[in-house]
């Protein structure tokens, strides 16, 4: 026993007891480990393990993970497309609004600024556009009047025909 030198306490009686306790502890460990080491070992026959179970659970897990991932990607793409479409619509609306406000402003600005000497070509173009627009309006109104005037009940059609003929004669 090479550890007796460790026991150099003030109380010799206690040190003797510690020494005894440590000796018993070692003897106990020796006995326990001897018995444990020499115990008969039963070799259990390896049971047939179902190898498909872990494979199936793995496959299911992978499928679930792939599904979740695909769903997330799809959702993300949908959101992105919707955002793009909304942005496009907004831009178109803005552009349309800008176009609608730009024409009168140009015309007003040209007419409202007496000092500003607008080029003659621009003025001419503007007046030509106004003329053509008023001509189109008149033609449209005339066709509408004609259509409306032609809408007479079927029973009055001969009379209307006569009136037309009389009118033309």
């Amino acid at each position, binding site marked *: 026993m090479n550890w007796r030198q460790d026991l150099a*306490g003030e109380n010799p009686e*206690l040190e003797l007891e510690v020494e005894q306790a440590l000796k*018993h*502890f070692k003897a106990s460990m020796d*006995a326990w480990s001897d018995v*444990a080491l020499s115990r008969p070992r039963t070799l259990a026959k390896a049971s047939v393990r179902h190898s498909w179970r872990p494979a199936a659970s793995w496959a299911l897990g992978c499928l679930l993970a792939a599904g979740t991932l695909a769903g997330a990607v799809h959702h993300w793409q949908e959101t992105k497309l919707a955002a793009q479409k909304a942005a496009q619509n907004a831009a178109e609306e803005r552009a349309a609004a800008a176009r609608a406000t730009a024409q009168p402003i140009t015309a007003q600005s040209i007419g409202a600024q007496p000092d500003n000497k607008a080029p003659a070509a621009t003025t001419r173009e503007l007046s030509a556009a106004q003329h053509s627009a008023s001509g189109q309006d008149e033609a449209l109104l005339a066709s509408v009047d004609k259509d409306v005037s032609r809408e007479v009940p079927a029973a009055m059609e001969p009379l209307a025909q006569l009136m037309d003929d009389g009118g033309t004669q």
Partner: protein
Amino acid sequence: MAAERRENEWWRTVNLRSKEASTKVMAAGTALKPMTVEAAEEIAAQEFARIVESHRPQIFRFLLSSLRDIDLAETLTQECFLKAHRNWSHFRGESSAMTWLMRIAINLQKDYWRNRRLQFWRQTRTNAVDLDEASEWLPNGERNAEQQILAREQVAQVWQAVKGLSERQRTVFLLRYVEERELSEIAEATGLSEGTVKAHLSRALGRVRTELRGTR
């Protein structure tokens, strides 16, 4: 100690021979019989088997006292020798084979506790026996019943003290008082300085004294 030293010397020779197996060694004009690699490996394997046979009970006992779990101690003992076999070529014989093996066992035990701490959420099955059961083991000497009971009580008190020790203190304590290793060997096996080993032992003994004093 002398036997261990002889064993180390022998091993150093075997390792050296296995490395220079294919070369012919000439000494003082005398030709030594060349040793083939296969022959050297066979000798090394036989010697390793002898080492396993002689040191297995001690490694097992140390692990059993550390873990109080027979199955786990057996598993880690096997792992210890497997690791030793894999790294046998790196063993230079600078320390004794026992110290080297003990170092591997200590590291395995550390890894085990670390893994258990990390996997605290896992309901790991443990077969560790409780302290009362561990205290039951005593050799049937010529003691009478009263002495047996007294001895059992003392063993239980030492177990109680061991339970309260830190992992490192417990390792040092068990190496000293169960494996009866020298301080230098414990220092080498644990990678601590001798002073630290002494400090750990002093604290561990203090706990044992407190336990024993508590029942007086």
